[in-house]
């Protein structure tokens, strides 16, 4: 493996990080807050680190699978590390472990925070937090790929690791167009969401930050009370819409906008995904209304649908205190957190595609028992699925369940209650960020939890197997 080539590509990612740090510093300067120097220095240091390999290593080289993998994982790890700098330099609540937590939570679009009083944090630093979401949302490497015109093989090598494996299969476009489609959809959605939020009553700063969070399905807010602080139905509606859109395969969104045949209305997975949001939202609304938590069914439905959309998209925006909800509603929320969005989106979780496949496998198994000699194949979106794809999906579901269990055991050993430990594990691994059961929040959790939870976030973001490969590099041919 050529480390120099890997370092060159990672250098571009560092430069991108530095650019966002400098934009955040400009924001800090505009608002006259105390994060100007920390952001400025972080930008300069990160830029210098990125510039060295670019200066020395000549470009234009084809990269291998292993190198592509190392670029992706290395970029994630390095971004998470350099992303800590502004927090560490600013200080406040950001100790070393807290900065690590906040940085990884940002880049993995988890959105969990250790901050107790978000309004006390300078606006420049809040913008940086949201920027980490935005960069993480599309995948730090995606940005680097857009500025790299190296063709075909390089891009697919990286995208096959970065995007979930199912996502790759769904694309109906040439590989060298994929990156441009992703960026086009991503930037367009961010701009439209920002403008709509501004029109709905937010100021520009809040609108940009919440738009970054919603489109990246992250969950960082500029308010301690999250979206609930705005108490604005239009804001909730806009955010819910963009969270849901961002959780649908970006290629499918592009196909829908451009009038292609394989649009979201014909997608079995999208129909299932949106249906699951409506069903879970209704369950929450009925449950909370029957418990007398809300005065009208309309209010319960508004809150229930928003919370379900927030959790199923693994965003984690909050408009109400869900810890007072009954167990039926909590179960619906937990299911949403575990399921997550569609493959090929910025959402985390198991992914709706795999859940649909799992249901189909169950159905197939029952049929197979009735007709042992029948050859039964599984179709998804009208296409026959290869056994390898189905097997991988099932292996992933099992691995995901195991990882949730491992995470829960570790959290339980750190003193969490059973439901708190499971909730913390799902929130971290699924990149949800928001806990369904109260465990006091990550801000008051022990230091080891704040170190371990980001590791789970990285596992989730790199789809478990992607992260495990990091430890098996030497045996990778």
């Amino acid at each position: 493996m050529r480390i120099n080539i890997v370092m060159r590509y990672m250098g571009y990612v560092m430069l991108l990080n530095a650019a966002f740090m400098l934009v955040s510093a400009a924001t800090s300067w505009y608002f006259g807050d105390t994060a100007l120097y920390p952001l400025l220095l972080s930008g300069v240091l990160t830029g210098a680190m990125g510039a060295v390999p670019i200066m020395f290593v000549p470009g234009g080289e084809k990269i291998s699978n292993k190198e592509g993998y190392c670029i992706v994982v290395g970029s994630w790890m390095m971004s998470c590390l350099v992303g800590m700098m502004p927090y560490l330099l600013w200080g406040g609540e950001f100790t070393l472990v807290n900065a690590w937590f906040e940085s990884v939570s940002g880049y993995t679009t988890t959105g969990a925070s250790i901050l107790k009083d978000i309004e006390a944090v300078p606006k420049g630093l809040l913008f940086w937090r949201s920027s980490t979401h935005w960069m993480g949302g599309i995948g730090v490497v995606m940005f680097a790929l857009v500025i790299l015109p190296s063709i075909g093989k390089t891009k697919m090598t990286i995208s096959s690791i970065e995007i979930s494996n199912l996502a790759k299969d769904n694309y109906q476009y040439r590989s060298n167009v994929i990156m441009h489609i992703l960026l086009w959809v991503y930037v367009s959605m961010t701009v439209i969401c920002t403008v709509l939020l501004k029109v709905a009553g937010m100021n520009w700063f809040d609108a940009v930050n919440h738009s970054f969070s919603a489109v990246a399905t992250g969950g960082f807010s500029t308010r301690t009370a999250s979206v609930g602080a705005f108490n604005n139905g239009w804001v909730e509606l806009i955010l819910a819409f963009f969270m849901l859109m961002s959780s649908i395969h970006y290629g499918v969104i592009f196909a829908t906008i451009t009038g292609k045949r394989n649009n979201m209305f014909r997608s079995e997975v999208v129909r299932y995904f949106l249906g699951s949001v409506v069903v879970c939202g209704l369950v929450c609304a009925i449950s909370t209304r029957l418990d007398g938590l809300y005065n009208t069914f309309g209010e319960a439905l508004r809150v229930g649908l928003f919370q379900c959309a927030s959790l199923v998209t693994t965003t984690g925006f909050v408009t109400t205190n869900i810890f007072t909800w009954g167990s039926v509603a909590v179960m619906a929320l937990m299911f949403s957190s575990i399921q997550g969005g569609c493959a090929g989106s910025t959402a985390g979780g198991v992914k709706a595609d795999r859940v649909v496949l799992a249901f189909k496998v169950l159905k197939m198994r029952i049929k197979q028992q009735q007709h042992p000699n029948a050859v039964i194949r599984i179709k998804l979106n009208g296409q026959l699925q290869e056994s390898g794809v189905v097997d991988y999906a099932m292996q992933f579901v099992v691995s995901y369940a195991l990882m949730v269990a491992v995470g829960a055991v570790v959290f339980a050993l750190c003193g969490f209650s059973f439901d708190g430990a499971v909730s913390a594990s799902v929130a971290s691994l699924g990149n949800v960020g928001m806990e369904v059961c109260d465990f006091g929040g990550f801000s008051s959790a022990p230091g080891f939890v704040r170190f371990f939870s980001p590791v789970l976030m990285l596992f989730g973001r790199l789809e478990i197997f992607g992260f495990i490969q990091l430890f098996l590099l030497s045996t990778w041919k």
Partner: protein
Amino acid sequence: MKFDKINKLQLKSLRGKVMIGFLGLVVLLIFSSVVSLVELRRIGSQTQSILAESNRNMTLASELLDAVEDQNHALQQMFLRGDISYDTVYSKRLTDLSESLTAAQEQQTVGIDSVQAAFERYTEVSKFYRIRSAIGDTEWYSSDYAEAYHTLIAAIREYMMSSQVALGPRAMAIEQNAYRAITPSVITIGVILIIVIMLWYFLDMYGVQTVVKVNRALGDYLKYGIRYNANIKGNNDIEELNSRIEELIARVEDTNRK
């Protein structure tokens, strides 16, 4: 910007790359020192402002207390001895008190509002002090006046303490700034270490090793007549040197053939 355009912009001179690399390190050091200095200066100005504010509050509070005490003393003299000459002392100290309060309000010091409220109540109660002292209304003095007087004294004492109470959060802010003054240096040193390691790695790979390769290939060609092939890639002047050597060898071989 397209990748090939970036490649074209890339600096070719190895000397230039080394110079930029090390100049970059110097700039980073200077920049982090400037950030540390700015934060240190902020600590200095914050400490000065805390001390100045504390001193100002104490002085003002002392002036206010003196004025109220003098007024009370004057009133006592008028009540007990019927000495009307103290009326001028009372009036003068009332003016002093009012002026001190106005000065404190202009400086927007913390806790001055409660003193102002207590002072207004005090002036309202003691408005007809001349008549009260003339008729010897001790009941008024011991109940209404005494209550307003004690409230005012308590408010002034609280005001005196306010700067001390505010010291806690301000000391924390100073501690925060001290952290911000030290951390840049620590982090910059860490980053510089990483950059130095990278520079060493790339200089070794694209500088030292390439020269060794050229030397070995040239030696093999001269000694054993093995075809010169150093296979240098580096987008720098050693790669250029390599291609020139190849060209030179080709020319020499051409001349020999002729």
